[in-house]
Each structure stands twice: as structure tokens, then as C-alpha cells.
């Protein structure tokens, strides 16, 4: 039977919803699911992880080095903790992508990136070529499967009736001091999180400037939506990097995605393929985004958005 270790992702005492999506993938593999929390103080995060449906145990490692998780110091601890597990899963967030290959290399095994579906305990599908092809890959049965789970492909598990027990784990791993955390600059906003919001409004180069982007934010607030952007909009400095949606940005699966002034390059579309309904507003009737949009409107976004706002009241 499989024994799966899921690496908890957390920041400021809050468990990232991506972890509940990882657990969803682990449940399809089947077997025991333990969640590992590396933190300076794991208490709060461990409590949240213990509630997740399908989790058997929560393991915590509390060390001063875990105050700000760095791959260089987290990976040796995880590699040690992985002993006896058939699978080690992390989310395909920037943190998981940074960390899991380092874990895999320490264990001397391959890593499966961005699991979209679990075909069997050692067979998975994943995207390549910006999602232009989906491959089925098989990992050897005699090796630990280290993988990242493509969060947009997995709905988060809910909370169980009973909390799983938590245990402190002591891992005997020597941690390097060659890498140091300096700071994290967050754009704090009260808007729904881009990666879990049911509705997302995005703007592209067509929005034209940082000032103009306000109109996207205003509409998003009216619809209680998260806000995303194309690479072109981020590169041009209209919005910060953490808003980029696409192959090399965030992969999202909202119920409603509305793209304003985005042409629909393949690298952008790969980030929204799993959205429920895609709406495109573009003044160019030939824009490629209309080929995949569920609802398209050819028009000037600066005219359409005020009309939408007026109609929404």
C-alpha cells in the first residue's frame, strides 16, 4: 500500500489552500497520507492541516532554520523524513517547484512535475510544451515518487469530522548555512486570491498603462473577483509579477475568467485552460483568444467596462 508524505505550504501561520489540493491528488493514489509541516512554530499550521479530509497524521519539525523556508535547508529535512514513504508530494506553486526537485535529487530519484491526473500509484499525466501535449509518465515502482501536483487540476479536499493526530518529528539532518533569507515583499491586497478565487478578471497590454489598470481593479471589486494579467502587462509594469497568469506564471481554474485586452498567446491560454467559462473582450475580432472563449465580445474595453459596471448597478 502507498504511504504518502505531503509537504505543507504555509505563510504567516496560514496553510496555503494548495496543500489541500495536493491531498486531493494523494487520495487518488490511495493509502496513508501524512502531512509534513516545517516551521519555526508549527502549531497553527498543523491544526489546519490536521483537519483536511483524508489526512492520517500531521508531522511537525520545528527549527529556527524553518522560520523562512528555503529549499537549501528544507530539502535535507524532507529527504530524511521521506524514509519509508512511497510518495512525496508538493504543490506546483513557486515554493513547491523550488523545493521538490532538490528533494528528489537528494534521494537520487526523478521528479514528476505538475501532476494533472493519477492513472495508478506510479503513473501520472502531466503537460509539456505549454500544455500543447499531455503525457502519461510512469515512475519506477522501486523508487520513491517525488512529484509536484498541478493545483489547478485538483479541487481542494474539505475538512474531515475528526482532526488527525499531530506528532513532532526529530530529523537528524545537517543544514547548510550558505543560503539566507533577506526579505519578502508582498503586495498585500484584500482581493480574493488569484489562485483560488472563483472569479478572475485579467488585463493585458490592451489596458495600456498602470493608471488604466484601475478600471480592471474596480470591475473586479464589483464582482468580488481576483485580478490577473498577461505577461505583457506585467513586463510593462502595469501590475506586479505575482499577477501573471500563464505557462510561466500562475495556472488557475476559476469558474469565471474575463480577459480584457489580452490577445490569447498560447503561453497565456495554458494558464486558464481549466477555467469554467472564459470571456474575452478584445477590439480585434481576429484575436486568437476568441477561438477558445466561451463568450466573446469585440469591443473597446474602455467602453465595455463602464457599460458592464452600469448594468451591474
Amino acid at each position: 500500500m502507498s504511504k504518502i508524505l505531503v509537504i505543507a505550504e504555509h505563510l504567516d501561520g496560514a496553510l496555503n489552500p494548495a496543500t489541500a489540493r495536493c491531498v486531493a491528488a494523494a487520495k487518488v493514489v490511495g493509502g496513508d497520507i501524512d502531512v509534513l509541516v516545517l516551521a519555526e512554530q508549527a502549531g497553527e499550521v498543523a491544526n489546519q492541516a490536521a483537519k483536511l479530509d483524508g489526512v492520517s497524521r500531521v508531522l511537525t519539525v520545528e527549527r529556527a532554520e524553518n522560520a523562512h523556508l528555503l529549499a537549501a535547508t528544507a530539502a535535507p529535512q524532507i529527504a530524511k523524513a521521506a524514509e519509508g514513504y512511497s510518495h512525496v508530494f508538493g504543490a506546483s506553486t513557486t515554493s513547491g517547484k523550488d523545493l521538490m526537485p532538490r528533494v528528489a535529487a537528494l534521494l537520487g530519484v526523478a521528479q514528476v512535475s505538475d501532476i494533472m491526473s493519477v492513472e495508478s500509484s506510479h503513473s501520472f499525466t502531466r503537460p509539456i510544451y505549454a500544455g500543447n501535449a499531455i503525457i502519461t509518465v510512469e515512475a519506477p515502482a522501486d523508487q520513491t515518487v517525488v512529484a509536484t501536483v498541478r493545483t489547478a487540476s485538483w479541487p481542494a479536499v474539505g475538512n474531515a469530522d475528526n482532526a488527525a493526530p499531530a506528532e513532532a518529528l526529530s530529523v537528524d539532518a545537517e543544514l547548510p548555512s550558505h543560503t539566507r533569507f533577506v526579505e519578502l515583499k508582498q503586495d498585500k491586497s484584500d482581493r480574493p486570491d488569484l489562485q483560488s478565487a472563483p472569479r478572475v478578471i485579467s488585463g493585458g497590454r490592451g489596458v495600456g498603462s498602470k493608471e488604466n489598470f484601475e478600471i480592471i481593479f474596480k470591475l473586479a471589486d464589483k464582482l468580488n473577483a481576483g485580478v490577473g494579467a498577461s505577461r505583457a502587462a506585467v513586463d510593462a509594469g502595469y501590475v506586479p509579477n505575482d499577477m501573471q497568469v500563464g505557462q510561466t506564471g500562475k495556472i488557475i481554474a476559476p469558474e469565471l475568467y474575463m480577459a480584457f485586452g489580452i490577445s490569447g498567446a498560447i503561453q497565456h491560454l495554458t494558464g486558464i485552460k481549466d477555467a469554467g467559462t472564459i470571456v474575452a473582450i478584445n477590439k480585434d475580432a481576429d484575436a486568437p483568444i476568441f477561438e477558445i472563449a466561451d463568450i466573446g465580445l469585440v469591443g473597446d474595453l474602455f467602453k465595455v467596462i463602464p457599460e458592464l459596471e452600469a448594468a451591474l448597478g
Partner: protein
Amino acid sequence: MKILVGYKRVVDYNVRVQVKPDGSGVATEGVKLSANPFDDIALEEALRLREQGVAEEVVIVGIGPADLTAHLRNGLAMGANRAIHVTTDAPLQPLTAARTFLKLIEKEEPGLVILGKQAIDDDANQTGQMLAALWGRPQATFASKLSVGDGKATVTREVDAGLETIEAELPAVVTTDLRLNEPRFIKLPDIMKAKSKPIDAIDFDSLGVTSGDHLTTTHYAPPPKRSKGVMVNDAAELIDALKQKGLL
């Protein structure tokens, strides 16, 4: 200081790759090939560090078949001092690529290794992290800003929460994100000059790398198709359509 740069050749990002009808692979015959965009960014950053006087030598590394030479000449024309061509016909998985880089590092002893954050063919996003683990050195992935001095690299990283800055003692592995820089264009005279720059060819088998190609791809499928939807004429119709779908 010497900088080693990963310089992979991939299917150009503008090509819409198609899966072969029998599911045995993707059709790559005759399609345009280019440098992995993240590797052009890696090379550009290395060249800037050389121009700042931080580095003396920039060495690009390509692992691939014999006809990789023309691709490596492009990197030399962009400004790399020399190239290492590890020749192998089979594409390598990231763990094997990382082990190969480690062999080269043992010989070249670079102060900094810059790779792309991901190759846009396998979209693996692993090689840099694996290399840093095997080498026992720091990794600074998804870099959007890099400064090097006093024996360390200070790197701003693009992460989901925003921008993270870390310090890494050298030698270290850095992987590039899109906004680190804008790669320069190759000028005609530089193409001529590149012809005389050295390319060391090393047979992959001679390096004694233990293969880490543990994953077997059993099937290729096209992505589920999203069909073309409806067009509406104005904002009012759009709102009606969204209401009908229960989205408003």
C-alpha cells in the same frame, strides 16, 4: 570568475506543437528550433556580469545531438567566450542533465552557474534545483534581479506571494525568470567573430554519468479541446449570457 550557462535548444516558442495521431510523440520534424528563452536570459545576465567586471569568462553548455553546433554558434555570437557541447542523441531527463552539469562543474570550477528556470519543451523546471542539491550549493530560482559581489549573490526571486530576496554564498546556481533582463540581439559582425570561438565537444558517454532517466513516457495526447463559444454584441448581452450560465 567563470560563469557556466545552460544553453538548451528547444522548439521555438511560437510553434504550436502537435501530438502525432498515434500518440507516440509530438511532431518536431522540420519545426523551427531556437534557444530556450530562459537560457537566452541566462546568457544575457552572464554577459552583463562580465561587462561589469564581475566575471572574466562566460561558457555556454549545450547537451544534445551533433547538429547543436549552429545553435551554440548563436550563443557565441551573442558574446559567450566558448562553448561546451556534450554530445548525445537521446534527450536527457533533468536528473541526468543535472548530473552532467555536475561533471562539467568539477572540471571547470565556475563561481556561478546560470540556468533557465524551465525548458519550454519538457516544462520540467528541475535541472537547476537538482544540480544545486547534487553540488551541495545554494540555489536561487526564478531570479528577476541578480547582483554579485563579496563572494555572494543577492537574488530577488519571483514567487507566488510577491518578490523574495535571498543571499547565496558562491559558488551557487541561479535560474532565470522572464523579467531578469532583455536579451540583446545578435549583430552580423558578431556572427563572423563567433566562427573562430572554440566549441569543446565531449561525448556524453565519456563523462561517466549515471543515468537518472527514470521516467518512462507511455503516451502522448493532445490537450482537451475548448470549443469556440458564442459571440455577443454588447455589454448587456454579455451580462445576460453570464446570468444564463448562473455566473452572475
